């Protein structure tokens, strides 16, 4: 006459007929185990019923990616305790992947996604069961985000520093579509970050180069117009040439003077040769004076021309140097940009599920049963304590 408690659940269905024969024994047993039946067996049976009869298939689509970028320096400050704990290897947290993961869980993304994908109808397909589907037909962004976080799981795996994305919907093609859209959204995010990060450096360098180029051109033009106006290709050399000619004239003058002195020693002053020499001296003198006049006074005088010319030459030199340095910095900026380029590297592409992997019926039922059993155990012990006190 031993009825083990484990078959109570099935006995409970057929007692009506048997109740006539031995009502007291069975009823007593039922009464004795009613706590267990109510707390453990009934919810588990309901869960089994739900998962076998009601629950709609959910199809998962999984994608995995990581964000590639410049190595963000793994000399993170690691704290004194790290050293104390034996200097275990500390990994730098790849912030960009983390950022993408945060983004994938954000309301911002849900709002953005809603523009391109009809999220509400995807999660309100007719085949969806009452418990798993999205309840509201016009959900607010917050409600939709809450539901979204239930159905879309983005996890950051710090070991491989990848982000894994798991999308569940009621049709395989919906899952794939949604996963693709999410990947695209995260790619857009990464591109935005990346553009903002590098756009400035190169743009600045390019602007710098433009300024330098304009300066170089302006300096060349100024030089050309100076040459045209001054009718001189190279004033420095011209001035040198005229200085030389003045020197030669002075040489000739002093020579002629010396000759005159020499001839004065044995000739009469009114000798015609003396007159010739005097004439030459006078003409040389005036010539020298005229030359000097031309070099130092008036428009196109040597100092001014020279100063202007030298200024222009200096300007040209500076402009050349500025251009050279601007070009170098543009090149380094370009190289940096190439290194700082962030992009989403897909490891696994989202696929269309061939069979429904969700909901996880067995796991859920078994864990529910186990938890309820433990709760029942604690509850019955506590109630036994109450009974003991009351007695």
């Amino acid at each position, binding site marked *: 006459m031993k009825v083990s408690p484990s078959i109570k659940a099935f006995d409970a269905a057929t007692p009506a007929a048997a109740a006539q024969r031995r009502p007291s024994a069975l009823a007593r047993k039922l009464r004795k185990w009613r706590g267990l039946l109510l707390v453990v067996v009934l919810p588990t049976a309901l869960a089994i019923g739900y998962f076998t009869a009601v629950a709609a298939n959910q199809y998962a689509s999984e994608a995995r990616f990581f964000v590639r970028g410049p190595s963000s320096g793994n000399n993170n400050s690691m*704290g004194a305790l790290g050293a104390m704990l034996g200097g275990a290897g500390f990994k730098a947290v790849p912030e960009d992947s983390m950022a993408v993961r945060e983004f994938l869980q954000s309301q911002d993304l849900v709002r953005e996604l809603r523009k391109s994908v009809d999220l509400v109808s995807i999660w309100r397909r007719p085949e969806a069961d009452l418990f798993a589907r999205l309840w509201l037909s016009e959900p607010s962004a917050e409600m939709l985000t809450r539901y979204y976080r239930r159905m879309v799981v983005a996890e950051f795996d710090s070991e491989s520093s990848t982000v894994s994305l798991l999308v569940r919907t009621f049709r395989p093609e919906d899952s794939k579509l949604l996963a693709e859209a999410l990947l695209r959204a995260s790619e857009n995010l990464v591109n935005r970050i990346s553009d903002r990060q590098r756009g400035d450096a190169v743009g600045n360098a390019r602007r710098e180069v433009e300024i330098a180029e304009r300066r170089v051109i302006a300096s060349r033009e100024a030089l050309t117009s100076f040459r045209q106006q001054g009718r001189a290709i190279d004033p420095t050399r011209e001035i040198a040439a005229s200085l030389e000619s003045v020197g030669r004239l002075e040489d000739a003058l002093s020579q002629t003077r010396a000759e005159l002195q020499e001839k004065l020693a044995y000739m009469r002053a009114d000798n015609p040769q003396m007159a010739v020499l005097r004439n030459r001296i006078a003409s040389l003198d005036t010539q020298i004076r005229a030359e000097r006049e031309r070099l130092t006074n008036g428009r196109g005088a040597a100092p001014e021309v020279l100063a202007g010319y030298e200024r222009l030459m200096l300007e040209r030199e500076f402009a050349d140097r500025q251009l050279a340095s601007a070009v170098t910095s543009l090149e380094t900026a370009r190289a940096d940009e190439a290194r700082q380029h962030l992009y989403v590297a897909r490891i696994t592409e989202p696929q269309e599920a061939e069979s429904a992997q969700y909901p996880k019926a067995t796991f859920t039922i078994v864990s529910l049963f186990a938890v309820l059993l433990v709760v029942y155990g604690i509850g019955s012990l506590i109630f036994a*304590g109450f009974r003991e006190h009351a007695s």
Partner: protein
Amino acid sequence: MSDASSLPNLPARRARRHWIIEGAAIQWRVISALIMREMQTRFGRHNLGFLWLFLEPLVLGTVLGLMHSTHGRSMPGGVDPFLFSIVGYVPFFMFRSVVNRSGTALHSNLTLLFHRQVTPVDVLVSRNLLEAAAVFGVILLVLGVAIWWAGVWPADVSEIFFAMLLMFFLCHGVSMILAAGVANWEGLERLIHPVTYLSMPLSGAFFALAWLPPELREVLLWNPLVHLHEMIREGMFGHAFPSYYDVGYVVRSILIVNLLGLAYLRGARRKLEIF
């Protein structure tokens, strides 16, 4: 309480009420009476015990904080080292003080257990409630001072309280198991103190899991205490560094530990009644 005056009424009331309500009410009365009694034995005689309750976390936190500061390197996430040590030690302090006192709980109340309505569970519940309340007061004070001193406001106070509540239930379960274990084998009591001391580095009190390599982190996360410490740190410092915890896991371990504790204590009762 007016025990003498309410005694004549008791049978009449018992007849009217369901045994669950009646039993719960009686158990509650037993527990509150035990708390009053415990309060006398714990803090009544000499106040040094009470003072020590305050001093211990302060001294340990200060020493550790100083160690960190003199080490020169700053903590990751720009966290104040003194506050970090205090926040780490203080919850562990609750665990230690509750668990350490569980070994002697039954033995020192053995005479009371001769009364039919005093059960070992009552003794442990009252003892742990009192201890937790005292420790909680100390924690509030110490944390308050530390927060005022460091000038950092906790990110989420409710999370800290929730973690402390979970910590209490966990400690309660563990203390029940240990009390029953001591009743079965007295040598266990000698082991409780050293083991709680040695478990300090494994409890996640003085380091954040974010600093550790993932393999080590996985191993440490088997310990529910580590989850609770991570939770409290998150409640204190927000997201200065990533926190790793799973409330579901903690709740499950609390359930299991409490079930084992209640059942074991029930079984250990027979051993006790021999004395």
